[in-house]
């Protein structure tokens, strides 16, 4: 790898949260997970200097940024028109050869067992996943990407996605300065997900911090995110690992790799698996351990994306995390304390039985 290439590319495992300015939120979080001792699909990150250089070489950076800053977040038609225009333009800009070479040589290193291993290409913006602003899901992700040409194309699509209408509106609403916005792109070994889903280390419905809520379905997690499937739902006791609740749903469809070798297709789940739990108790126990580890690492409740994958070489099943971000919905809410200390411990009982304090 050339000296020049190094500043454009980093391994996921080399990153930590501190690298967010140059690696974007998602990449930094994945790197941090690796250092917490949690398995993450291996890969590399096309760092923000690559994006900046891409725009600069094309002479487009200042123009684009000015155009965005002149928009008002509530002028939806203007935002949409600008977004379309800018994205089209980016789609036609050439990727500077040194950046393209750096991406391709790293991709080749990943593809040890033959040319063109499938990868996931995911955007990682510098302003996403900060604790106050949950920015998730506003940029693009491409699954089962194969071959250098397609990879470069998808990296460029990710770059462009920073200018999609939702992202622009979001930034304008928060009045974030455009010159501090940049985009990194994660290129990650594609996981052959048997099942996948999300888990919350704080109950999304009640805010209870003593449970881990796990949702999962067959195939890739995209079927859950898109709402096409009602996932299996498990509530696990965070402290003991016991499964408090399990609702096994009828999982009609799953997202899997397209047999053509690239892209994702939706297919019907066979009858045998439709109503079968997508997670064994052993896998739930493993997810429970991982959730505890990640939450402890960040010292705050997390929303986590996971997948159970088959190792392409050994065929063994393994849990990988695809994402972890701080929980924001309950964190910002004021919760009344359940009780306060009293002068004497038994005053609690007297208060309760005498209805001295209004019962709720």
């Amino acid at each position, binding site marked *: 790898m050339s000296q020049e290439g190094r500043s454009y590319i980093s391994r996921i495992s080399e990153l930590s949260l501190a690298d967010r300015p140059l690696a974007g939120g998602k990449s930094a979080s994945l790197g941090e997970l690796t250092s917490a001792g949690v398995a993450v699909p291996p890969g590399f990150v096309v760092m923000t200097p690559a994006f900046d250089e891409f725009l600069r070489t094309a002479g487009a950076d200042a123009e684009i940024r000015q155009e965005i800053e002149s928009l008002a977040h509530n002028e939806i038609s203007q935002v949409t028109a600008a977004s379309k225009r800018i994205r089209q333009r980016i789609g036609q800009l050439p990727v500077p050869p040194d950046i393209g070479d750096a991406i391709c040589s790293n991709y080749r290193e990943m593809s040890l067992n033959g040319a063109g291993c499938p990868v996931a290409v995911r955007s990682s913006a510098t302003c996403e996943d900060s604790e106050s602003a949950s920015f998730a899901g506003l940029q693009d992700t491409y699954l089962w990407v194969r071959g250098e040409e397609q990879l470069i194309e998808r990296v460029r699509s990710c770059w462009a996605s920073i200018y999609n209408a939702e992202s622009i509106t979001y930034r304008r609403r928060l009045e974030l300065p455009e010159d501090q916005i940049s985009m990194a792109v994660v290129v990650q070994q594609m996981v052959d997900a048997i099942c996948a889903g999300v888990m919350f280390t704080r109950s999304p419905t*009640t*805010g209870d911090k003593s449970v881990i809520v796990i949702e999962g379905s067959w195939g890739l997690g995209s079927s859950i995110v898109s709402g096409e499937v009602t996932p299996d739902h498990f509530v696990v006791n*965070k*402290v003991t690992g016991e499964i408090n609740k399990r609702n096994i749903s009828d999982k009609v469809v799953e997202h899997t790799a397209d047999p053509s070798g690239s892209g994702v297709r939706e297919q019907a789940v066979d009858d045998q698996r439709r109503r079968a739990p997508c997670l064994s108790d052993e896998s739930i126990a493993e997810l429970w351990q991982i959730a505890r580890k990640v939450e402890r690492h960040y010292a705050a409740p997390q929303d986590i994306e996971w997948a159970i994958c088959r190792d392409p070489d050994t065929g063994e099943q393994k849990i990988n995390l695809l994402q972890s971000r701080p929980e924001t919905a309950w964190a910002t809410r004021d919760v009344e304390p359940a*009780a306060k200390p*009293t002068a004497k411990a038994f005053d609690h009982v007297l208060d309760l039985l005498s209805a001295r304090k209004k019962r709720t």
Partner: protein
Amino acid sequence: MSSKKNSRPFPLASEIEDVPGTEGWEDMYPYYTRRQPGDDEIFWFYNSMHFPEPMPAFDALTAEVPYTAMGANTTRIFAFPATLGVEHRIINGRVYITAHAVTDPDEIARRTEIFNKRAGHYFENWDELYDKWHKKMLALIEEIDAIEIPQLTEFDDESAVLEGRGIGQNHFVREAYHRCIDMFSVMWHHHFELLMLGYGAYLVFFQFCKKAFPEIPDQIVARMVAGIDILMFKADDKLKSLAQTAVDLGIGKHFVDGADPDAVMAAIEASGEPGEKWMAAFDEIRDPWFNISVGDGFYHYHRSWDDDRTVPFSAISHFVKLIESGEDIVRKTEELKAERKRISDEYRALLGTEEERGAFDQMLGLCHHVFPYVEDHKFYCEHWFTTRFYAKMREFGDLLVKCKLLKDREDIFQLNRSEVEDALVDAMLAWAAGSEPLGAARWQPLVEKRRDILAKFAEWDAPIAIGPMPEHLEDPAVQMLWGITSETLDLWSLPPDQVSQNELHGFAASPGVVEGIARVLKSVNDIGQVREGDILVSTVTTPSWGPVFPKIKAAVSDIGGTMSHAAIVAREYGMPAVVGTGRATKQIVTGQKIRVDGDNGIVTILD
């Protein structure tokens, strides 16, 4: 559920008809247990937790006396602000109860002042009072053991003359009977002395946990509170030590699962020196540990381990098998304590503020302080004392047989408290007159008739509740003792077409999911039928069933909450349990394959 709620799901008291062939059954019980004109306005529920079977005439005392004592404690002694006592009725042999509460805010305020002072005194001086309680109970047990029942010998003892006593022994027959009944009453007053306050400590912590952790399962709260060194587990340990001794002495083979205990004893006695050694070890723990009864002391025929050794010997045979297969059966109390501490520490750490952690420490600390009483009082009251009480009553039974009033000592329990006194007076009079007692023709046919009535009552499908559905039921005492809340009532009142015939819902008392073959026990006396790997389905499970737990795969009960003993023991053995299903013993048949989901509180009939 509310959308399709049945507006009048339960029959009214007056609508309940007699079971055919039981005419005159009301005479078995005192007049104040009978239905009254206003009863149709009141919601009653069947207390199948304490009284899962029809009440023999004498045993009605085990409802009357506890309710006399419990109400005294809450209504009059401590003046609980909103909680009064319990009123009961006996209908077709079943005990129905209703809890009285104070709702007028001024009245609550007036009682609160008294309550805080009195309850505060008990909490403040808990250790000293518990110590005193313990001594009182031991003295009471000693006292009832010491009661001598006169044998109505031909001539009175010479001492009546030489000591100038001047009282004939027939006087002491009735006096001894009264003293036994009085001591039974004293025992029940002691029983409630610290209990309601102890439950209060648990309830306050329970409610705190539910508020701080809305999804916390009840059983986790129970696990943080539950004692490790409780007497019921100590009894289990004693059985394990007897099993170990048998193995060490090489006579473990005599303990065969399902064998007649007398045959086992005979084989041991015939085995020479090892047998003698084992018997010595057995005698050492027999008193007090074999005073544990297979029930909770509410029925005379729930015999003690010493009276009927089926349950403890079956447990010993199981432990022998485990020891011989190289398993370590010693209870790891230190590990259990460490795990309990880990769980509570982690929950504590999850709390949001220092203030909450402070309150948590106070409440859990208080629970640990008062719970040894809550968990251990039963051993002294319902088991040890009550076993001795029934033993004395059987001595009176012997006297009545000797006087030809009854045919069998057990027949005494077919007479109610006043009738027993009548029969004794009959004997006293005849002894004095030098004549024959007159009651044989009265009592003996009555005993037969009542046995027949009880058999018919046993077949009656007792409604789970009676009367108008209450708007809500948030009585903390009812919730604590019976596990009944508004949600329970909603479930009970589902119209029949909405009640799944294959699925039962209850409290998720102990986690895990298993499938297996059901063993339905309608009477505790059938407990000897339980076999290795069964799923136990019972009306209620009492602490003394502990010994069968190592053999079973899961436990299901009709009645009980997460602090019920079935729940506690199931958690101890790490097996799934669903309690408070309301109708498991009615819907499940022995031999059926069922699934017990202790995570969600669901029992499914698979056959």
